[in-house]
């Protein structure tokens, strides 16, 4: 039975129950855990011990890349490849180049934010074991779920199952692989 199980999932009715249960799961030492909610719950980050994402640094890198790309582009165009005097300004007239540099900074940062977020989240993932539970469709509507994966070092089917039952959930499911 425990061979082909992805994890054990419990269903809760309210966000408070989910967060309280998550605190207990964390304190019991489980690390391969996840919560599912129909909207972002801030308390659960702390409750499950989720570490702050590196995403902001990626976005900063993306923004700087955009800035340097634009700077390189205007420098190449107006100083190296096609130097031409316009309006009596020098070849490298930085103030006039600020708007394109600013816009590309934003553009690259925005692309990094969106696709970086999706990438770090492992999306797109059309299949995921949790979707095997029919009631999981309610996770995008009104119910809250807590999952302990079978890859957790402390995982033991009987123990985890009993532990989940002790959290007084609505229902406990075995999530098949």
């Amino acid at each position, binding site marked *: 039975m425990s061979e082909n199980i992805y994890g054990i999932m419990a269903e809760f009715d309210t966000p408070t129950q989910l967060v309280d249960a998550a605190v207990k799961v964390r304190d019991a030492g489980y690390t391969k855990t996840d919560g599912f909610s129909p909207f972002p719950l801030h308390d659960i980050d702390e409750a499950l*011990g989720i570490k702050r994402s590196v995403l902001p640094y990626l976005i900063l890198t993306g923004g700087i890349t955009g800035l340097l790309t634009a700077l390189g582009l205007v420098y190449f165009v107006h100083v190296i490849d096609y130097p031409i005097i316009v309006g009596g300004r020098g070849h490298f007239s930085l103030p006039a180049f600020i708007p394109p540099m600013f816009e590309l900074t934003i553009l690259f940062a925005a692309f990094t934010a969106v696709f970086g977020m999706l990438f770090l989240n492992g999306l797109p993932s059309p299949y995921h074991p949790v979707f095997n539970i029919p009631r999981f469709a309610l996770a995008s509507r009104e119910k809250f779920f807590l999952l302990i994966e079978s890859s957790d070092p402390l995982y033991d089917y009987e123990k985890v199952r009993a532990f989940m039952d002790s959290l007084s959930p609505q229902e406990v499911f075995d999530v098949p692989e």
Partner: protein
Amino acid sequence: MQDAIEERKLHPAMVEGDHDFGTVSDRIGDLTLKKRTPFHWFIGFAIAFLVAQLLMVTIIYLVTKGIGIWGTNQPVGWAFPIINFVWWIGIGHAGTLISAILLLLNQKWRTSINRFAEAMTLFAVACAGLYPVFHTGRPWLAYWLFPYPNTMGIWPQFRSPLMWDVFAVSTYATVSLLFWYVGLIPDLATLRDRAKNKYFKKVYAIFSWGWRGSARHWHRYELAYLILAGISTPLVLSVHSVVSLDFSVSQIPGWHATFFPPYFVAGAIYAGFAMVLLLAIPLRHLYNMKDFVTKTHLILMGKVMLATGLIVGYSYIMEAFFGWYSGSQYEWFMIKNRIWEGPYWAFYWMLMFCNVISPQFLWFKRFRESEFWLFIISIIVSIGMWLERFVIIVTSIQRDFLPSSWAMYSPTIWDWSMFVGTLGFFFCLFFLFVRFLPIISIFEVRTLLPQANVHGRPQDFDENVLEIEYTYDKTDPPNS
């Protein structure tokens, strides 16, 4: 629970009626999934579609014949195309203001109106983008605007505000689309899980990327969303600033003014909120969304309109004052020509009535709280903002430095058909949006409900997302 009730008493209700997570999802999601398409939708879409055909016909004739079919002449080389471009792009700004700036300011009321306001932004930018492309006269060469290595061995001129405009508007369109789409992902997942139709389910599944509401995903999602809001804020301010630089970097009296960027940005937000109200008021009635777009929302939007209207009014006064104070005979002549001596003086006073007088009624509760008057004032303001661009553009260049080159400008039927056509195109896109996507952000409305509180603490979207450092200690966990 007591805390939750107290919490709700402190804030004016952002969600009215007795809702829980499920009813919120049904009420908004069922518009796309279950409910029969209402009859008024077909009527509205048919009219918008017919009007959009005007745009088709105009563009076909325009491309075949050339831009001589327009009234655009010398010296009025920037006429309807630029007036309408600025008008449309300005309207778009309210959507970004609502979705980004109000998010950073933690204004909870933006939550129920941001989705359709952002859609409005996208469609307005699409309409705006048409004008410069066709105004080039050779739209099939529009890609010359972008810097790419070519056999001609030339490059665009990056010192020109027109080039800045290309970068600003294309970045704005792209980032607005990304921002809007990111907001849609969790809602598309809701629709995916609710859809009965096999094909719709597939489509929603593809576009929701397999979103499953994982806590780890939400964490990164909120960071990304917040940072997008943070970078969209300077972006939206930069876009209309750059649009205004198209004018103010030139040396034409009436355009060459340093205060143009803030003046244009305030005007853009002013016009945009008028358009948001014009869309929100019918939407909440026709689709019975009064629980989510409440009177409070309309009143707050009315207040933003009043505030930006006052900034715009102040700018008009400053504009006239600078014309006199500059001591330049050309500047002062332009002001006189614009306000009382010139042929277009009536447009100036119509503009004053629309943009300065009409919003003053919003000081009074009676007008601010009446949907009818908000709707009427929004229409007047939309017309006023169009007149503003007409006055700025036409009266500045029709009589410039050299009297021998003075001329009158009047639009032709093709100028009007293109403008009315873009209105049809805009509403066409909006009707399609209303039919196929959730018009209100479902997951964000859930966070407004008192049921979303954890131990009485509200879970408002993005609040305190930056504070979740490791404040807990294994030996002394919170909530225990």
